[in-house]
């Protein structure tokens, strides 16, 4: 297969690193060569986070060049715009329908993006949106938001749900597994209808 490039972006504390871990594990279980590279800054929460996963027959660079992401998964709406330059011309976009106001805006140091809706529409006409927070809330655990997104993301990868779930079993502690798999399935259904 052609190497597939996935960029996962969002805000520290949203569970991006676990999601990319599970994607990387899934690809490994499928017998592919995998590279997962992340930049997560400091200990505190709230900063921009990016993790990149590449998989295929043979993967060299751990970094996805600008304009080469086949898939951009943004855990937050503003971050989706911030990483626009990563997306390939025919790349797909999955956006978590959630706003997290950066401190620079909430404290009045910088102006908010007034026309965020319009800009997202213009930049990503075919984007898939998932309200992962709302779905996780229905399931009674907001911390499983990332697995809802993983479920949605899984439909855009060449791997079946069974492989994904095996990766989750290997990575997530047993007592949290059920809840997370439920969230994953909710995410899958949300985009498959």
């Amino acid at each position, binding site marked *: 297969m052609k190497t597939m490039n996935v960029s996962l972006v969002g*805000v*520290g504390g949203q569970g991006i690193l676990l999601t990319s*871990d599970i994607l*990387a*594990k899934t690809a*490994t279980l499928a017998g592919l*060569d*995998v*590279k*997962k*590279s*992340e*930049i*997560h*800054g*400091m*200990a*505190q*929460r*709230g*900063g*921009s986070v990016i993790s990149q996963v590449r998989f295929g027959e043979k993967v*060299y*660079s*751990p*970094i996805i*060049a*600008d*304009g*080469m992401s086949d898939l951009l998964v943004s855990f937050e709406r*503003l*971050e989706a*715009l*911030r990483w*626009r*330059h*990563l*997306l*390939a*011309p025919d790349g797909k976009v999955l956006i978590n329908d959630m706003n997290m*106001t*950066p*401190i*620079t*805006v*909430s*404290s*009045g*140091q*910088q*102006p*908010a*993006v007034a026309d965020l809706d319009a800009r997202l529409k213009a930049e990503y006409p075919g984007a898939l949106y998932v309200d992962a927070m709302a779905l996780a809330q229905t399931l009674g655990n907001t911390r499983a938001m990332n697995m809802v997104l993983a479920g949605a993301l899984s439909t855009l990868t060449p791997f079946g749900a069974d492989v994904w779930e095996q990766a989750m079993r290997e990575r997530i502690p047993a007592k949290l597994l059920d809840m997370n798999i439920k969230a994953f399935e909710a995410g899958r259904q949300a985009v498959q209808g």
Partner: protein
Amino acid sequence: MSQKVLLSANEAVAWAACKAGCAVASAYPGTPSTEILENVAKFKDTINCEWAVNEKVAMEVAIGASIAGARALTAMKHVGLNVAMDPLMTYTYVGANGGLVIITADDPGMHSSQNEQDSRVLVKFARAALFEPADSQETFDMVIAAFELSEKYQVPAFIRLTTRTSHTSTVVDVGDDFGPGQVERKPYVKDIRRYIPVPMFARPQRVRAQERTEALRAFGCETPFNRIEAGDTRLGIITSGVTYQFVKEVFPEFSVLKLGFANPFPSDLVKRFAAGVDRVLVIEELDPFMEEQVRAMGVQVVEHTTELNMLEMNPVRLMALRKELLGDVEAPAAHRADTGLPTRPPVLCAGCSHRGVFYTLSKLGATVTGDIGCYTLGAFPPLNAMDTTICMGASIGNAFGMEKAGMQGRICAVLGDSTFFHSGMTGILNVLYNGGTITTIVLDNRITGMTGHQENPGSGKTLCGEPAPVTDIAEVAKAIGFKRVVKVDAYDLVALERVLKEELDSHEPSVVIAGGPCRLAAKLMNAGTYEVDPAKCKACGACFKLGCPAIERGEAVADGKRFKSHIDPVQCSGCDLCRQTCKFDAITKIR
């Protein structure tokens, strides 16, 4: 059956150390190297491992273990190597007994560092051996090979990682029946000619170090870690480390000499490679370490104007190089990054115990020499309470130097507990001894915060979670001889202002310990919630000066010139500071 696991290079170091029979590991945390010891701790049954108080001590512990005949490992970030250079420079004369492997993790592009350094230069300077892995599998294999090489040639052996190897996970075959390796310890034999390099013993050692360098150069020409990948010989590319991966992506058709063992530089191999290609191009991250040596050998190297010798390497930069040299690629048509969006910089957590101190220092108009940790964020608006940051421990010497230079006003040094133990104790000793009057403020949150919450001598636990004696910073200061040592609650703004004013205005040296747990590490992020009563809020803006991420602009008043405040109940961790800043009792605890 061979076992394949997805590992970051940091994890691969730990697995390899276990397999190689490493017996002792000591390190001080630092991004991107921190996870190395955290993962070594998973093999604590066979590796005696610890957080040292700084990199110099970590290096000395590893050297001691090596002298005793055991295999030993130390790990640090690039700036940590600066701190550890002194013992290293002499141990390369003495020579390793048990294998000594040193991991240094560089941070090209400064994702989380105050500078970028190319550790390869220091490895050469120290006359040590250097392995440069390009992924986790190579890291695993090279760590094992480095232990063997270190013993065979009696040389400290480096593994140079970078952010993109340390924090990239790739598939690693850890071999059949993975488990702790059994190696025979080298005997320790008392030998002052070897272990005590006074001048008369050091001179012959210097000569031996040179002979060893030549022997290792020959090793470098034969080891499979240095390999020629034959291709189109119109261009021959010499590369190393993660940069190799980018070269394979952007220049896939050309001959490559991949150097996995780059110091001592394998000159004969390089000459052989150069002779077999039309033109030689050197592509490496950071300094022209290899390129200068290739040129010094008299080999002609392709000239170009694409800047490659600073900041992080990536495929796009190499596409620009290829475009310049061959004119046959265009970088993919990417949108330009939108620089007009509101930024999302790191901020002190909601409820961080450092916030009140900076709020107070800002109010007192102090000149603050800062240091390195989460608290460096006190420099930014709206706190604006830090003037300088140089390197770990520098705050104290810097403040004292300002005083010595005759600078007026309230001068103080601010540093964290881990930084104090790392290199602050000698600083305050110097202030006292030399008659300084500055105030040193230790932000004592009982954890090494910024690197992801590691234990330290003030936290009561070791790397492996065992109980440990707690060192009290106030007692340290008193034992050094400070008369003015004050402990204050970091969440009490009234007490903070009183104490800091008093100490900053006193003409005697003092140490203030502002105590409060790291809110994130102590799992207090949901400890409570506060609320602003919009009817009482006068939009005075006092609480905004705290810069708490939970406090947002609410309703606009006075034609949008001022704003009432609003607290995000999800982010608020209930630290109480904002309540103390409000003169109108508009802020109350609701949970």
